[in-house]
């Protein structure tokens, strides 16, 4: 074991100037916290299981003590992991009920700061919940730990690209803003050299985006698949190679095998982080086995609930339930996050821990059929833009028989365009939906900052 891979990242002044000390206190604390996570998640499985058991027990005790909702919900079942399946499933509306009636389960006396958070609503109605300062701290540490586990070079630049205006300018047609983020290393910023970390919000400003990406090599791009699609539209994988991109950290949704292959051929890594606003990090894509995600057991207990399954591409996937071990402000115990996946005991890479694959989430991403089946509707933006000239689009399943396609920047479509879109839906779904095509000057996104390419009113 050594830190040799960090040599080129270390600052000359990394270590303490105080006698009989190596690191200063906050740096020591941060490094130890990160290494504790790595020890827990890669060390002995039995020891980890025991820790999870203890954390779960403490969480349930806390929830029962402070919340009538949770006393009623959990009954008298003893709080062990083997009993977890006896606990009822927590839905979004349950969370809303608990929050509305009781608020946060941490108070000033606990001396752990809390804040009200909310999901974006991309997977249904937004959920409000409380999170503690410890949760935010954990999230930052866990991301840093992942970089250490993968032996990433901290000096490389990272840029997050959101192909949307930020929340303050949602109504604008064109938007471009660059902001830099102070540090991804937290207190360890005094120990390690770091690359530039920035965030770009871009809406219909491709020229400005490319200019900005040309200024500082975007070694790592963090973007959703539809955002990456937009970037690929501008110049394909060749553009990414030219810009110096080494890695794409994919956020949410799924990507196609075609994308995987083109990135692999270009020598660009892809890694996805599976997380949700409610609990933070859930799992991290394996660097050796694409599509397989090692569960962040230092944060969550994950179950695949076979009482609700769906068939996707011939695979039976189970509902994902999450227990967030550090959710003391608003407990998430057996929370239905709205996703489906497969759960294995280990990963083929050798990792000895629960591993997810075939994650399809959120349920909103599925086309639902009258016979009860679900299938994910995956496509690249290019597939729409190839058939119809437009500024934006959205596909929406209105009911079990009807799919509506909004085409932005157009007043009307010709026959060929309409036929092509119908054909596209038929090919993707294998079914004869009623396809309603609506050209509009501007799509009404209903204030949803994510501007999702596909939504569904059917659950």
């Amino acid at each position, binding site marked *: *074991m*050594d*830190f*040799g*891979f*960090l*040599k*080129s*990242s*270390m*600052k*000359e*002044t*990394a*270590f*303490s*100037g*105080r*006698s*009989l000390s*190596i*690191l200063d206190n906050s740096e*020591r*604390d941060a*490094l*130890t916290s990160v*290494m*504790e*996570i*790595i*020890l*827990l998640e*890669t*060390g*002995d*499985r*039995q*020891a*980890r299981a*025991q*820790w999870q058991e*203890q*954390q779960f027990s*403490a*969480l349930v005790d*806390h929830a029962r003590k402070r919340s009538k909702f949770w006393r009623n919900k959990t009954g008298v079942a003893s709080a062990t992991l083997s009993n977890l399946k006896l606990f009822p499933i927590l839905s979004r509306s349950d969370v809303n009920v608990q929050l509305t009636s009781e608020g946060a389960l941490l108070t000033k006396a606990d001396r752990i700061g809390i804040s009200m958070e909310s999901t974006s609503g991309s997977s249904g109605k937004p959920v409000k919940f409380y999170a503690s300062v*410890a949760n935010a701290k954990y999230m930052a540490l866990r991301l840093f730990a992942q970089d*250490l*586990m993968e*032996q990433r070079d901290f000096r490389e630049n990272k840029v997050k690209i959101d192909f949307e205006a930020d929340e303050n300018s949602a109504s604008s047609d064109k938007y471009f803003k660059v902001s830099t983020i102070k540090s991804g290393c937290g207190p360890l910023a005094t120990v390690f050299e770091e690359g530039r970390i920035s965030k770009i919000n871009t809406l219909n400003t491709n020229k400005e985006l490319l200019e900005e990406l040309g200024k500082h090599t975007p070694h790592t791009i963090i973007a959703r698949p539809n955002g990456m699609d937009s970037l690929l539209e501008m110049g394909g994988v060749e553009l990414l190679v030219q810009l110096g991109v080494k890695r794409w950290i994919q956020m949410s949704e799924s990507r196609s095998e075609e994308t995987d292959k083109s990135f692999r051929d270009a020598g660009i890594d892809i890694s996805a982080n599976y997380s949700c606003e409610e609990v933070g990090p859930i799992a991290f894509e394996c660097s050796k086995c694409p599509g397989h995600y090692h569960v962040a057991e*230092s944060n969550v207990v994950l179950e695949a609930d076979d009482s609700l399954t769906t068939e996707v591409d011939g695979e039976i996937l189970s509902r994902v339930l999450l227990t967030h071990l*550090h959710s*003391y402000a608003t407990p998430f115990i057996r929370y239905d996050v709205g996703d489906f996946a497969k759960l294995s005991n280990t990963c083929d890479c*050798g990792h*000895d821990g629960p591993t997810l694959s075939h994650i399809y989430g959120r349920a909103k991403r599925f086309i639902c059929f009258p016979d009860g089946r679900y299938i994910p509707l995956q496509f690249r933006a290019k597939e729409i833009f190839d058939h119809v000239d437009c500024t934006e689009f959205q596909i929406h399943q209105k009911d079990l028989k009807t799919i509506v396609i909004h085409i932005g920047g157009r007043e009307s479509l010709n026959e060929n365009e309409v036929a092509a879109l119908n054909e596209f839906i038929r090919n993707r779904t294998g079914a004869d939906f009623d396809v309603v095509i609506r050209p509009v000057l501007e799509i009404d996104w209903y204030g949803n900052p994510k501007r999702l390419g596909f939504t569904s009113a059917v659950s």
Partner: protein
Amino acid sequence: MDFNYLHNTMKKSAYSKRPFSILDPAQRDAFAFILEIILLETGARSSWEHWQDQQLKALTSHAKKRSEFWKRRIGSKKPTLKTLKLLPVLDRKDVIKQVASEGALITEADKIGASKNSSSGSSGTPVGFYVSRVNGRYNAVRGIAQDFMEQRNLRENRVKVSSATSDQAAGKKSYIKAANISGWLGPLANVFEHGITKKISYLNESDALIKELRKVTPHHLICSPSIMDIILGIGGVELLKGLGVKRWIQFAGHRSRDVEKDFRDAGIAISANYSSEETGPIAFECSENPGYYHVAISNVIVETDDSLTAEVNGETLSRVLITHLHSYATPFIRYDIGDFAKLSRSCECGHDGPTLSSIYGRAKQFIFYPDGRYMSFYYDAKDIQSRVECSEYQIHQQDIETIVIHIGGRTSIDENEENDLIGFIRHKTGANFNVVVRPVSEIDWRGNPKQLGFTSVFG
């Protein structure tokens, strides 16, 4: 980076029960110290050099403030790594003088506790000096850090075999005592499963020694080369294999190439720790390059001083000077430890740090010639035991022309035995020393617990 190699090594109850915690405070603190040492010693060169500079500055500043002896010695200089060589060399007499006149340079007000310690005198007059609690803690943790760096299996047993002390063996012809030792892992004993640690003190009880070694598999056998010679004399490398020995941790002394080959062929690893009672760990043998030692830069600065050299086996070796960075109780700055070695900037294994080789220590291990030459004098127990039956022996250079061999357990020896021994010495030294062979019923070790096979009035 991961801790996969720790599978099956961790206790089920390794982790904390407390919410938001992974390790409990004492375990966390011990873990943190190990991580700091590994980060420092395997991290960037410029970073650890900068740290050493600062530690040296703090140490010399402390020494000047608290000691007239050191104020005179350092004067107005502000030593750095580059200018350290401008300070005078500190020898044993200097240390004795400073300690006698000033005592410990830390007081109760410093809250780090000082205690009196002494070297064994194996390399000359015993030196009394003070150490602080910090030194004891560091020494213990540095050993554990080495195990982590080498990814050793902590579940393996460690058995240390040493000669009985003069107190233990007083008036006895033979002695054996074995005791299990606890606590080498400190607070981390709650986190990791660990093997048995046992200490055997012994004198002339071969059968009892082997019996004791059979009671608990000595996966790691810790002993000096002279003790190893005795064990090999009983049953060769086959005995070690039969006992289940995986590694010999050699301390002090020198091993021959023959022994290295035998061990290599038998699949038994050898690693040596180079240390001194005055400073603690100095360097650890490289697991890839036998005979090369990575300096423990978290503890010492090592210089090789070309103003005093010795020729050994055709190599020119320089005097080793040690600056102990944590010697606040009794400062050791440019301390002549009595050894000679070669110092390289890095190791061929890829380790980017000072690396010692050809360590010959202590100067007492040299034969001195009338023409001013030194030569290392090493031999195996069988060199004597194959020539003369005896219970013990010692070779001593009495003056520049005379070597005395004491043969214990005999009242007389015959002419053949005497001539054989004289021939051995003259052949080994390549010179016509006056060799005096003295049979005695018991050798007077003069209270020296190490009972060294070779001593000299010189060095």
